[in-house]
């Protein structure tokens, strides 16, 4: 096996048990939240409260995925803010567009245009 002599000497470290346990804990949290969402989906009647619960649960899940899995929580402050601040535009867009949609539904003469 002559070509093995070209392979670099790689030092393999033992598994970081603490970190791996933390990752599985985050996975457990994500699964519990998803199961909770399922229960809410069938236990509650549609309404503003149900929608708010889903939105909050989604943001909590996003926090764990971005913060722990994507490691953003442990990066430099300036990187965290560079990623988070621009998402303000998304929130504005959401509010503006959904409000616009509700107003459009009030204008009945537009209905034939939307084919329903």
């Amino acid at each position: 096996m002559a070509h093995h002599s070209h392979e670099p000497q790689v030092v393999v470290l033992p598994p970081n048990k603490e970190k791996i346990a933390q990752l599985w804990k985050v996975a457990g949290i994500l699964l519990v939240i998803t199961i909770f969402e399922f229960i809410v989906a069938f236990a509650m009647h549609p309404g503003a409260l149900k929608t708010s619960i889903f939105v909050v649960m989604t943001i909590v899940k996003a926090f764990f995925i971005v913060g722990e899995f994507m490691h953003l929580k442990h990066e430099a402050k300036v990187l965290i803010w560079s990623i988070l601040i621009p998402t303000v535009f998304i929130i504005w867009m959401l509010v503006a567009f959904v409000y616009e949609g509700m107003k459009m539904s009030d204008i009945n003469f537009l209905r034939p245009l939307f084919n329903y």
Partner: protein
Amino acid sequence: MSHSTATTVSSRSVWDGGVSPMGVSYGKLMMWFFLLSDAFTFSGLLITYGLIRSQHPAFTGDHHAFVFSHDYWPVPEKVFEAVPFLHGVELPLVFVGIMTFVLIMSSVTMVLAVEAGHRMDRPAVEKWMLWTILGGITFLSCQAWEWTHFIVGTEGGTTIKEFVNGAWTNRTIYGANLHENQYGPHAFADFFFFITGFHGFHVFSGVMLNFLIYYRTVTGMYDRRGSYEMVEKVGLYWHFVDLVWVFVFTFYYLV
């Protein structure tokens, strides 16, 4: 400006060069900004869905009495209630729940591959990358089934009334495509294809990238390079795909 040349190294700003102010490599930083721009793209799609949905009337009757109609936006759990091998059994959102579980698990195996990469542990990276690829392929297969079911439609179809050549006639529609939709307004099917399709394409690209990383790990490229950072960069992309699905799951299937 001859006086300013006397400044010492310690008073220089971190932005003057020579260091990474954000504490990450160029490649990782650019992956972050790419993902930010991709988040805007997906937000555009999902928010437009919100706009179109909120301009349609919602179904207001009794939940159990729900029927498909073009007059109001459908209740998603009434549309997505089928599971493979369980024909005719009403299991709302169960299959999409399984898909969510698969994608979250593949995100976990990806982050374990990244952890193994930090330790230069090649066999562990190979093992976790294979699990991640398997998760991605499983998700795509599930999506293929769901699309097929959505396109083929329910057994009875939906009968609609339409005005053709000066007379009202009845016509039965089966399934959905970009022209007609048995489940509700046209836009509901259009957004289903666009949003889950665009996400599915991201998953597909992710599987391709994951396979590339796996191949390069197996051939010892990262051992020779002395760093497994590529696993981290592609890992960021893969977690983002999972993140988007979390939002699609909420805003398309639950709400």
